[in-house]
């Protein structure tokens, strides 16, 4: 977990996104994102459905369906966009998925141990034995109040919505990444589960170098997990940034006022979606 460019002035910048344009299926989605995340910071990103929040997270994690049209992303002083998805993971990038994928027949134990060991190997560490892994996994399961048989079950298969989300946090706790991108991990959780997940996130924040980008629709999680910055995405751009008070204002007033204030539009289908919802 050491920082790379300790001898530069930007010592604490972990992630620097500069004018990022991203498209999928030849349609532009992100239109010039600028965002700096310093080591130890937690940034919350809010914004209406379809504004591009998940696209940003997946593009940062290296999903091949998302084409980078323009812009730069520097992570720990390196060009992040040069790296394949697995290399980004080896460098400490973790994405908690909005929709965790089911992989039938693959036990979580096999999967997670393979993942952990490929990250360790890439960082010059010895692989963890099954015994050591089990000890680590048990400790983390316990913290997240998850049953041990979670390890024996097929990855995400048949997990309830809430279990899937908690499971993402469990994986994060085992892998101990440096940059955590959490995409709506709080959606679909009951009140107790929300508290457990928030505690999990806060435990990870005890490491002062670790940064987090937390995508959410609800101000509630931000009461448990205090953000340093709050951003609002609209139509593929960051339309407004502020502190925790911005989230409270959104909870009260919705997004229309930002549209009016900034002149940034949701795309037509997004506007339609907002009408019907």
């Amino acid at each position, binding site marked *: 977990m050491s920082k790379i460019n300790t001898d530069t002035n930007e010592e604490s910048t972990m992630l620097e996104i500069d004018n990022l344009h991203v498209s999928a299926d030849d349609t532009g989605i992100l239109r010039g994102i600028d965002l700096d995340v310093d080591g130890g910071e937690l940034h919350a990103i809010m914004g209406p459905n379809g504004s591009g929040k998940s696209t940003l997270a997946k593009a940062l994690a*290296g999903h091949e369906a998302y084409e980078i049209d323009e812009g730069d992303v520097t992570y720990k002083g390196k060009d992040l966009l040069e790296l394949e998805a697995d290399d*980004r993971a080896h460098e400490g990038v973790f994405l908690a998925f909005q929709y*965790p*994928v089911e992989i039938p027949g*693959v036990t979580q134990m096999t999967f997670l141990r*393979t*993942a952990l060991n490929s990250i360790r190997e*890439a960082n010059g560490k010895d692989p963890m034995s099954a015994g050591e892994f089990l000890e680590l996994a048990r400790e983390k399961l316990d913290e997240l109040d998850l049953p041990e048989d979670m390890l024996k079950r097929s990855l995400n298969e048949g997990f309830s919505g809430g279990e899937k989300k908690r499971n993402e946090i469990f994986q994060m706790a085992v892998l101990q990444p440096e940059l955590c991108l959490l995409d709506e991990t709080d959606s679909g959780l009951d009140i107790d589960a929300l508290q457990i997940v928030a505690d999990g996130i806060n435990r990870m924040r005890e490491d002062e170098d670790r940064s987090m980008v937390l995508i959410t629709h609800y101000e509630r999680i931000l009461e448990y997990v205090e953000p340093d910055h709050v951003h609002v995405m609209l139509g593929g751009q960051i339309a407004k940034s502020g502190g925790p008070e911005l989230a409270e204002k959104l909870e009260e007033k919705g997004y229309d006022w930002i549209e009016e204030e900034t002149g940034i539009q949701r795309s037509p289908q997004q506007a339609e979606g907002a009408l019907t919802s």
Partner: protein
Amino acid sequence: MTPPESKTIEEIADEDYEHGWSMDIPATEAPKGLNEEIVEYISEENDEPEWLKEWRLKAYNHWTEMEEPDWPNVEYPPIDFQDMKYYSAPEAGEEEDAPESLDEVDDEILEMYERLGIPLGEQKRLQGVAVDAVVDSVSVATTFKEELEDMGVIFCPISEAVQDYPDIVKKHLGSVVPITDNFYATLNSAVFSDGSFCYVPEGVECPLELSTYFRMNAEGTGQFERTLIVAEPDSYVSYLEGCTAPARRDHQLHAAVVELIAKDNAEIKYSTVQNWYPGDEEGEGGVYNFVTKRGKAAGRNSKISWAQVETGSAITWKYPSCILAGDGSVGEFYSVAITSRHQQADTGTKMIHLGDDTSSTIISKSISADQGQNTYRGQVKINEGAENARNRSECDSMLIGDECGAHTFPYIDVENPTAQMEHEATTTKIGEDQMFYLEQRGLDEEDAVRMIVNGFAEEVLDELPMEFAVEARNLLGIKLEGSVG
């Protein structure tokens, strides 16, 4: 780490058949072509009794009247049956001086098996697995022979069984797959050269895995082995065959026949890891694997279980089947078939329910990548007299890429209203999202594919004997390298 873009499919295809080498082993061969003299020659080379020679000639004469089947969903140019050799025996393994012990087995053959990862030597051999090694037409070595004999289990080349246990052989040979059964089985009956014979006496549960490793080495030679397994009442045996062949420009024909007979309360578990040479990236060369495998669950509460991992061959055409004759008998078929590049597979099973309270399970997993074509063809037949028969079939196909194909042809024929049938079929594509999920957690592309495919095939791989499950898992991964992404 190499980015996936830098490897072309062709380059990977070239490296991925690791058993594609051949060795120069002096051999005794029959000339090309097939006629009565060749059939007699094979019989004489094996020093066979008159009845068997007659049996072969009868098959041959029947075969000349038969037509090659054209119903499988596979395409290949016509085979010239006069343009191949029907017998090739590596000299060290010839009948007259068959090795008494492994010390007498030719060094080159030991070396060949070492390279295949099947050490035959005393110190190195696989724990708990007795191996019969077959090169081209003949068996060259059998391990753990004495240990098996102490239990009364006979495990030897079928050519030897013909000499030493003629009564058992005569009684069972052709009793499950009659010599007139089908074009390739009939051809095999005429020209089969060697293969394994296994006899488990009443009440014996064979503690060793019995295994045959088939290797085609000589060029232009067909391989026609014949396997016969007889399990007497209350016995159990688990048998595994593995197969490899060198990379050759020409197609090689492999037309085997396997017959299993399980008597009262007996169980035979037959597993295959088939990795014959699949041909190159253009579809040149590769083995034609046209095989007839059938088991008869003859006794009450007997059980026949087939598990197969089919990864090789240019064309595979096989339907390991169960005739559930005994009341309460059980038939199982677990299959994983992979077709990549230009491979074609038409495989499945037949479950013929004759007895009361018989039950069968079919789990078929097909994986197609590149231009591979994979067909599941399965028949479940419940005879009129079979009361309370049950069948459960599950056929799942996985597609990798857009150029491959998966086809499912289930034939269900129920003549008794008390039957309970369950059939399920699914087709899935390895999703970009599944790949991304695993890669996001740090797995490279190959490990990600391996994991998804192994997960898909898990239910079947679980059925393989432990010693071979690991090999099979690796094989699935190797087969698909470079097919995704």
